[in-house]
């Protein structure tokens, strides 16, 4: 069969995958979100009409709103923290480490991520609890007298998530730093730029596409995660996804849950569009990194 003729057939599995598992369920959820939660008997009855009620409930209730906004802001902070952690590591891996050491470092960073996310989050639990590693260390060093519990706070969730999604920032940053021609750095130094200005004028502008790609991924994951806030946040740091979860499983109100989920989806897409516009990048350029 000629390659050209084979192409439509090759497209069938991905299209089935995307259509059947992504587009159709999402459309079903979109439909659900515009309908009322009704007892089984009334389904299809006069009450069963399309309405924006669920979205209005979301907009009217300040509790929902606050959690929503807080989730978004926290996700932004997590993205920033992930960038601050990942950037020096990516720079070191791409431009400083050589040969065997680069490989070893890569392994050291990647190996923890072979472990399941829940298990990794448990590790943070062990670090942050009252009898945890962090407290033992601080007490031993005399910084604190009595152990403090860092768990179930915003800080714990942000730290845990920044770590959980750091790799998604690291790899695109590494890719863009890797192809940074080091003679550009030297040229800037030669023309009178010290390190901070080399960073600002040469290195950071160069890795904007990588940083945006990484930020989009980390933000999306952070805004939509359930595991880390549930484990590290407890009742102290409620995440919007937990509200969605509660609508679906506790209140069994799929319609309201769908409306929440859709609001989150629209927001996430808005974030991506905003980032791209802010840095004047096209999606294609970002996907390349």
């Amino acid at each position, binding site marked *: 069969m000629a390659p050209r003729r084979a192409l439509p057939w090759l497209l069938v599995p991905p299209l089935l995958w995307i259509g059947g598992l992504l587009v159709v369920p999402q459309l079903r959820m979109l439909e659900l979100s515009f309908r009322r939660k009704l007892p089984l008997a009334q389904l299809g009855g006069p009450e069963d009409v399309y309405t924006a009620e669920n979205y209005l409930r979301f907009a009217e209730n300040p509790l929902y709103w606050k959690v929503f906004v807080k989730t978004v802001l926290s996700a932004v902070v997590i993205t920033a923290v992930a960038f601050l952690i990942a950037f020096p590591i990516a720079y070191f891996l791409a431009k400083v480490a050589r040969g065997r050491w680069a490989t070893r470092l890569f392994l050291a960073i990647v190996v923890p991520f072979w472990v399941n996310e829940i298990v990794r989050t448990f590790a943070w639990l062990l670090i942050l609890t009252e009898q945890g590693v962090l407290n033992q260390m601080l007490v031993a060093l005399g910084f604190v007298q009595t152990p403090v519990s860092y768990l179930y706070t915003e800080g714990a969730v942000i730290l845990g998530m920044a770590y959980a999604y750091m790799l998604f920032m690291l790899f695109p940053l590494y890719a863009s730093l890797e192809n940074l021609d080091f003679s550009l750095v*030297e*040229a800037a130094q030669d023309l009178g730029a010290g390190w901070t200005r080399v960073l600002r004028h040469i290195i950071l502008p160069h890795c904007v596409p990588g940083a945006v790609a990484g930020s989009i991924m980390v933000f999306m994951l952070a805004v939509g995660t359930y595991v880390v806030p549930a484990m590290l946040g407890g009742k102290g740091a409620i995440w919007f996804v937990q509200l969605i979860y509660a609508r679906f499983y506790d209140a069994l109100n799929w319609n309201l849950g769908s409306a929440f989920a859709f609001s989150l989806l629209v927001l996430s897409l808005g974030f991506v569009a905003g980032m791209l516009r802010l840095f004047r990048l096209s999606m294609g350029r970002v996907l390349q990194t």
Partner: protein
Amino acid sequence: MRVTAVRPLTLALSPEGRGSAHDVTCDVEVRAVTKTYGSLTAVRDVTLEVARGEFFSILGPSGCGKTTILRMIAGFLEPTAGEILIGGRAMHGVPPHRRPTSLVFQHLALFPLMTVYDNIAFGLRMRKAAEAEIRRKVGEKLELITLQGYEAKLPHQLSGGEKQRVAIARSLVIEPTVLLLDEPLGALDLKLREHMKAELKAIQHRVRTTFIYITHDQGEALAMSDHVAVMSRGRLQQVGTPAVIYETPRTAFVAHFVGENNALAGRLVGEDGGHAVVETAEGTFRVGNPLGLPVGASGLCFVRPEKLVFGDGGPPGAAAPNRLQGRVRELYYEGVIVKVRVALGSGRELQAAIPTVSGARLPAVGQAVGLGFAPSEAYVLPEEADGRGPA
């Protein structure tokens, strides 16, 4: 054999010696500089002086240490031993951005996300110059490189030659004491390279900044430079004007590397009126002995293709020419000259060159020919210590 950077004292053909170098202020002094990487010595005990405002080339094959020297002058590398002075000031420990040098990189390293204007303005902005001053100076430099109207273009929109000129302008705008150029013409095609050679020299004449130019292309080095330093394997071989380097090489390496040369291995058997008598497999010749090799020493006799004269009469004016007999193997028409490959009786081949002046009679392939050269046009040099024989 150890060749130091002593300048030749008898310069038969040089228009000007280096004797005046000390009268002029030295812009760059490299004093006994050595650079080692572990067990590898990239640069070994090199001493150089570059006078103010001159076009100075460092010529050598890749891996000879010339780029290492340049990077040490620019401040990206520190010498393992020895010191570098720029404008009389010791540069040890001074980072690149505090040195009065500016480097034009091999691949130019124009900032890809900045316009031509921003590229050229970069150095001035780093010096916190006023915006009006920046505009004026960038304008001047754009005029110098005749790229007015290119301010808003991005590097990828420029041709090779234009990028070249922008890189030079970007380096010159900060008014460095010394402009360092790391084989900047390497990536250009032949025609453009010829053009840029002239352009570079013209720019240097206009700005009068000291240029230190790194190249492996002897044509570039000879054509553009006031002085050339030839390097091989981390060592300085010879420093001199292009004419001195070409006409009176002091080492077998320089004789081979700069221009084309014929080398005949032999042994000194005597002396005759200031010339050495060298016995080779191809005959016994009287040649110059610039290094004063003693009788009994072995060496290489060098004679350049254009110094070989066809015909049995020998070169006009030469009292006692050296003679060779051979047969024409091949002719290569090269425009300005015709190269002739002549096989000698011993089987060795020599290159000869005949200028294509009108009426010149060219020998035919297969024809038996006589060749002659004047003792003053040839010289004997010791073989290199590592046994590097005739190329």
